[in-house]
């Protein structure tokens, strides 16, 4: 019966970021969400538990506000959470995140399988999973679209690579990163949200962890990407569609 850890990140919902003048980014009205593909990571863990028993623990490192994300994660079927919250964990760099998560897992959570998302919605660095596997000294299988645990405690994974699919097998413990197509995440109902508040959350303070090293990458500046377009609109009527085609001709993009 596998003990499964799903790693999830609480991120800024990019849809709320506004672009100010001269490439400025305005975060004043942003909302937060569970990183999109981490919902697939949790779902996969919960499905595997449904098949094999065991346990599902969610693990998050982030700002104290990420407690909301921990609750959200618990409403998706995990039974307990470990949460390392500190204001300084707000903008962690991949190497720091992997170090923190690795330390918590090694010292506090018995596990057979760790599941991460393919990439986070804010950084999409696609690094924390593989770095964490190295930190734990376990095999990493990334970009997984199908996952099976066999009777013998071995894992069978289909990973997507450029030419197609690589089917790999490994003994547990293993870390996998999952693609969104692996499953369809459930939408938590009111009852799930209520029961989530009763589930245990182990809060870990920064002081309980070894000092976090310096970020290996430093951001020197961030600028909004621009998309200046004409935004001319047409209706669906035959006349308007004809006018649309006329506009394409004028622009010289059809001949």
């Amino acid at each position: 019966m596998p003990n499964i850890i799903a790693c999830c990140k609480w991120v800024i919902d990019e849809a709320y970021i506004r672009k100010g003048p001269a490439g400025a980014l305005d975060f004043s009205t942003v909302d937060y969400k569970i990183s999109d593909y981490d919902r697939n990571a949790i779902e996969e863990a919960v499905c595997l538990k449904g098949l094999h028993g065991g346990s599902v623990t969610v693990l998050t490192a982030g700002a104290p506000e990420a407690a909301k994300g921990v609750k959200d994660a618990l409403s998706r079927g995990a039974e307990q959470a470990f949460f390392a919250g500190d204001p300084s964990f707000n903008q962690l760099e991949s190497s720091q995140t992997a170090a923190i998560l690795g330390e918590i897992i090694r010292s506090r959570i018995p596990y057979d399988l760790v599941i991460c998302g393919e990439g986070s919605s804010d950084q999409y660095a696609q690094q924390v999973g593989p770095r964490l596997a190295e930190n734990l000294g376990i095999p990493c299988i990334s970009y997984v679209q199908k996952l099976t645990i066999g009777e013998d405690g071995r894992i069978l994974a289909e990973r997507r690579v450029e030419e197609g699919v690589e089917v790999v097998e490994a003994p547990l413990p293993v870390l996998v990163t999952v693609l969104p197509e692996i499953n369809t995440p459930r939408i938590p109902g009111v009852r799930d949200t209520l029961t989530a508040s009763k589930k245990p959350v182990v809060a870990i303070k920064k002081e309980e962890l070894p000092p976090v090293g310096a970020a290996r990458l430093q951001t020197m500046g961030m600028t909004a990407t621009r998309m200046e377009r004409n935004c001319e609109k047409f209706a669906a009527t035959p006349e308007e569609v004809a006018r649309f085609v006329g506009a394409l001709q004028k622009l010289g993009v059809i001949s």
Partner: protein
Amino acid sequence: MPGVWIFAERNDLALELLTVAGGLASQTGVKVTAIVPDQGDQADRCIAGGADEIVLLSPLGEDMSLAAWIPVIAAEAKGADPDILLIAATARGKDFAARLAARLDTGLCSNCTALHREGDGTIVMERLAYGGTAVDRVSCSTRPVMATIPPRTFAPAPADTGRSGEIRKLPLPPSTPVRVIARKTKDRSSQDITEAKTVICVGRGMEKEEDINIARQLAELVGGEVGCTRPISEELHWLPDDLCIGLSGVQVKPDLYVGLGVSGQIQHVTGIRGVRVICAVNKDENAPIFQAADLGIIGDLREVMPRLIEELKKATGR
């Protein structure tokens, strides 16, 4: 020893990395080392493309994964201490790079789209953040500076057959607990959308798989190719993955892009930033794609498509 290293699992990608590596190495007068699988004339082609030293990876057993090389390359890099290590951002390459960066305890700029050396020697790398909403410029304070570079970000290095270089081979690594038990090659589209003059992009607004035919018909009419959003290739599997446009797919730069039932989320729009004229058909007038489009038709595809095809036939005389 200072130097610029590249690693790519395919020769075409090695040549693209050599374009960047050559530029960076010549600024400081250091050597370029290419680490590539030992296949055919890879070594000669990398030397012609600007590499001074070739490190060949002997062919692995069928059941071994590329990751078996990680400890070997990490040991090589620890010994030689290169300044920069660039890796082609294929799925295996990105995994490889992150694990190598962890072993070398250094920073890695993922999916780096541009990089240059500042006057003080700092390497500044660009990557996208928040799904493509922003460009993040980063630098790395530890050695080596690492980056993964998506395919086609740079043109392949031209061949100079007069060049020479050293070639050495690495011994086979021990096997790992991860065994590859099957490799299935998937359908790939026969056409290359990154080269197309026109791209007709299918989104989830398409009701059923057969509806893609109408996009194909449109593409044929205007001499273009069909591409798609991520849900179409990944969730629905209606089209092969290599046609997915956006943050996790490819960047396209045609003269004309037409999005059919595409909502225009930032992760997709990021892939069409370089298009000359962006058009969209969507029934929701508030769909974000209209903010990113030059010309947009607000309407139901079922109603608009027949009219559009008819008008295009008239206009193009086809």
